[in-house]
C-alpha cells in the first residue's frame, strides 16, 4: 500500500488482485445479491484509489479496505429501503437464475446430497440475513475472513468489547435460527 501511495501503479494492481475475491465474498454475504456485491467491489477499489492519501500506515490495510466496503454495503441497504420493490426484484431474479441450475440434475446419484447442501446453504443464508447490519458484518469478518477482534473493531468503528458482545449476540441468534439443525446427529 505504501508503494501504491508513492505512485507505484503496479502495487495497486497487486492489491486489487489480492483482495478482489475477498471483497466480493464479504459484500455478497452481507448483501446476498451478486450484482450489488460486484458493484460494491468495483466501487470499493475505485474509492481506495481516489482516497489513497487518507490511508495511514499505522492501520492495517485490510481493515481500511473493509471499512470502505462496510460503508458501501450500508449505503446500499439504505438505498434498498428507499426503493424496496427494485431490490426485491433484483434478489428474486438472482435466485431465479441460480435455483434451477443447482436443482435440475435430480437423476444423478448425488442428487439427495446436493439437495441437502442447497437446503443447508439456504438456511445459513436466511439466518445471516436475519442479523442486524453490525452483527452480519462482524460474523462475516470473524468467521469467513478470520479477522481479529481488533481489526473488526476498526471496520465497525466500535470498541473491542463491543465487537465481542456483537459477535456473541450474533452467534446466539444464529443458533436460535438454526436450532432444528444444530442438535447432534446421533440424537436424531
Amino acid at each position: 500500500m505504501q508503494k501504491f501511495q508513492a505512485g507505484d501503479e503496479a502495487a495497486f494492481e497487486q492489491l486489487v488482485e489480492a483482495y478482489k475475491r475477498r471483497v466480493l465474498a464479504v459484500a455478497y454475504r452481507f448483501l446476498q445479491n451478486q450484482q450489488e456485491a460486484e458493484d460494491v467491489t468495483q466501487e470499493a477499489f475505485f474509492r481506495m484509489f481516489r482516497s489513497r492519501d487518507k490511508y495511514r500506515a499505522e492501520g492495517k490495510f485490510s481493515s481500511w479496505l473493509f471499512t470502505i466496503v462496510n460503508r458501501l454495503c450500508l449505503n446500499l441497504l439504505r438505498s434498498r429501503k428507499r426503493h424496496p420493490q427494485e431490490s426485491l426484484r433484483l434478489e428474486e431474479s438472482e435466485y431465479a437464475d441460480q435455483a434451477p441450475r443447482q436443482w435440475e440434475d435430480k437423476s444423478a446419484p448425488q442428487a439427495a446430497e446436493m439437495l441437502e447442501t442447497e437446503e443447508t446453504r439456504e438456511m445459513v443464508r436466511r439466518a445471516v440475513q436475519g442479523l442486524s447490519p453490525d452483527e452480519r458484518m462482524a460474523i462475516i469478518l470473524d468467521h469467513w475472513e478470520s479477522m481479529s477482534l481488533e481489526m473488526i473493531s476498526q471496520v465497525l468503528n466500535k470498541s473491542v468489547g463491543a465487537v465481542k458482545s456483537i459477535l456473541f449476540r450474533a452467534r446466539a441468534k444464529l443458533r436460535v435460527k438454526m436450532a432444528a439443525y444444530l442438535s447432534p446427529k446421533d440424537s436424531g
Partner: protein
Amino acid sequence: MDCKLCRENIYRYLRGQLSRSVHDVFEMHLAKCPDCNREVAQEKRLSEFLNEWPAPEPSLGFETRLAQRLQEARQPETGWWQRLGRGFMARPVWAGAAAVLMVGALAAVWVYNSQVLPGKQADMMVAQDMELFQDMEVIEYLDLLENWDEINALENDSEEQS
C-alpha cells in the same frame, strides 16, 4: 470455572485462542458438565454449517467492469458540476426535479418583484414628498406654484421694470 464463564469462552476454545491454563480448566469443566458439552457441540455444528455457504464466483463481465472502473479511477478528478452532470445523466428523474425547482424559484422571484416592488416605489415617492414639505420656502409658495399664470405675470412685471 462455572457454566456462564464456560459458555462465554466456547468460541475462543474452538478457535484455539485460550491460554494453556484456561484451556485445561475449560476441559475439566466440560468433562463434568453435559449442558456445556451440548453447547460446545452446537457451536461446532454452527461453524460447520456456516462453512457450507461458499464464496460466490464472479460473474462473466465482472473483470471487465472492474478494469473499466479502475481506469475511471485513474482519470483526473472532475469538478463538482461535472459530477453533478453525471449524476443527473444517471438519474433523469433527479434532473427533472431540479429543473422544476429552478423554474419554481425563478417564478417566485418574478412574482415577488412584480407585487412587492410597486408598493415599495409608492413608499419612496411619499418619502420624497415628505422631504419636499420639509423645505419651508416651498411650502410658503405652494399656492403660487400651482398657479402658473401668476408666476408668468410676476416674471413679465420684473422684465418690464428692468
